[in-house]
C-alpha cells in the first residue's frame, strides 16, 4: 500500500476564497458552525431580497431541511456552504443530485482540520479524525489516513497501517 508520500495527492480538494457569483438571482448561505470571513463579506454584498441564510446547529437534522429547500431553488441560484469537510461535501453532493452545477456551489475551506476516514476493510466511516494512524471506529484496526479524498463520500481513504508487520507502527502525527 502507499505509505506516507511527500507530494500533494491530486484528489485532495483545494478550496478557493469565496466570491459572489454574478449575476445569480438567488444566493443561499448554509453555515454549520461559524461563518468564515470571506463568506461574511460575500453575504454583505448580496442584495437582501436575494439572499437566504440557513444556520445549521445539528448537521444530521439539517440534511433533510437542506434537501427540501434545494428543491425550491431556481436555475440561476448559487449556494455557499461552510462547515467541516464531510458536511460541505455532503451538501455539495446533495445539491448536485438536485441538478446544481459545480460553478453554482461554493464551498468554504473547512476551518477545522478533522477528517472523516473510510476504512477499506470494514467500510465504516470514522468521523472527527485528527491524527494518523487512527483507530477505525468499526473494526478497531489501526488505519493510515491518506490524502486520497472521495467527494461522493466526503471522506479520506484509510487502510490498515500495520497489515504487513503488526509491530511496524509509524509515529502518530497530526493531520494538516
Amino acid at each position: 500500500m502507499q505509505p506516507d508520500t511527500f507530494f500533494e495527492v491530486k484528489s485532495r480538494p483545494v478550496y478557493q476564497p469565496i466570491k459572489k457569483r454574478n449575476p445569480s438571482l438567488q444566493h443561499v448561505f448554509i453555515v454549520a458552525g461559524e461563518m468564515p470571513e470571506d463568506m461574511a463579506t460575500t453575504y454583505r454584498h448580496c442584495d437582501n431580497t436575494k439572499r437566504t441564510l440557513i444556520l445549521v446547529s445539528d448537521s444530521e437534522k439539517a440534511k433533510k431541511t437542506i434537501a427540501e429547500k434545494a428543491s425550491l431553488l431556481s436555475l440561476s441560484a448559487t449556494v455557499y456552504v461552510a462547515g467541516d469537510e464531510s458536511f460541505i461535501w455532503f451538501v455539495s453532493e446533495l445539491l448536485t443530485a438536485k441538478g446544481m452545477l459545480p460553478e453554482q456551489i461554493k464551498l468554504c475551506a473547512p476551518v477545522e482540520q478533522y477528517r472523516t476516514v473510510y476504512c477499506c476493510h470494514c467500510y465504516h466511516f470514522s468521523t472527527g479524525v485528527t491524527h494518523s494512524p487512527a483507530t477505525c471506529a468499526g473494526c478497531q484496526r489501526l488505519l493510515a489516513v491518506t490524502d486520497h479524498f472521495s467527494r461522493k463520500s466526503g471522506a479520506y481513504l484509510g487502510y490498515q497501517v500495520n497489515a504487513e508487520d503488526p509491530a511496524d507502527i509509524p509515529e502518530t502525527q497530526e493531520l494538516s
Partner: protein
Amino acid sequence: MRVAPKEIQTFRDNFTYSNSLDAIKRFPFPFPEDDYRYSVNMEPHEPKGGEGSVYEKFLDIDEHYLSEMNERALVLKSMPHRCLAMDHMELACWDMIERSMVSLANDYPQYFSLSCEGDHWFWENKLLGINDQFIFGDSTTLPRAPLEYIGRQLQGDFAILDQRDGDLFLDAGIITCPADWSLAFDTGMSFTQWHGPVPMAHSEGIFERALKYLTAMPTGKPVRRLNWTLTVNARMDTSPETYHEWGYERTTITPENVAEKVYLRVELQVIDRMPRSHALMFSIRTYLMSLNDIVSNPEWATRLYRVMKTLPEPLINYKGLARYHSTVVDYLSQFDTKS
C-alpha cells in the same frame, strides 16, 4: 501457439497456479528500456506478434480462463460490491456486452457463439456451459445485471468511464484483481482524482495529456498500454479491501524463495470507445509470471535486473515493494550481462 483453457488452479490459499512454457513465451514483458519511467505509452490495439500472441485478438482468452472465472466468482461471493454500475451507465454496460460478445464469437468460435434476430440475441459460452437468450438493451431479460453478467465471462478487470464536460468519470466497474485500488472508494471520481495517489506523473503532465488523448478517441480505434508491479505469490486479488489478509506476505521474502514467490504482475490495459453510450471501456487484463519463469528468458532477466536496480524510490514505495526490493535486485544481479 495459443494454449486452450486448462483445469482450475488457485490464486489464493495453496496457490496451485502455474504457467506453461507457451504462457511464458507469450507473456507481455513490459520493459522496452533499462530505465522505467511513466509515460502515456499508448499504441493502437492492433494485432501484433502473430498467431497466439496476447495482442492478437481484441480480448485475450488463455489457459487461465477457467481459473480466473473461478477466482472472480469467489471474490464476488464474499464482496458483491466489487462489481457496481451507477444507474446512468446502463447503456454503456450494454455497449460492453455487444463489443465483448461480437469479438469473442468472432475470435474464438470454438468456445463462443452469438446469433442475433433483430434485438433477440442468443449467446453460448461453451467454456462455462452458458446458453442464454435475451433482448439486447433490456436488462430484465438477463440473469444478472449487465456488467456482472458479461464480466463473469471475461478475464481481467473492467472499468467503464463516463465522458462528460471534457472529463472521464469512473462510474462502473467489475474489479476483482486490482493492483491495490478500491472501486468502492473511487467510484464517481474524475480521471485526475482517481489517479490522485500516483507519484511523479502529475507534475510531468502525463495525466493531462492522457486525458486529452482519451476524450478525443473515436469508435473503432482501441488503444492499449502496459502497466506493471510486483506481487508476492500468484495472488490475483491484491485489493485494499483484503490487504489485511495478504499484506504480511511482503515480509516473507528471502533470498531462497524470492524467485519462486515474487511475481511480475503486468496489466495489459485496452481502452475502447463504446459507440452507443460514448463511454470508454477500460479493460485491465492481468498476467502473473514468477521471477523463476521470467529468468528462463535471458534478455528479460537482464532487463528486469536493470529496471529494478534503477527504480526511483517514490515508485518503489508507491508500488509497495520496499520490503523485498533489494532481495529481488540481489537475486537478479546474477543475470546482468554487463561485467
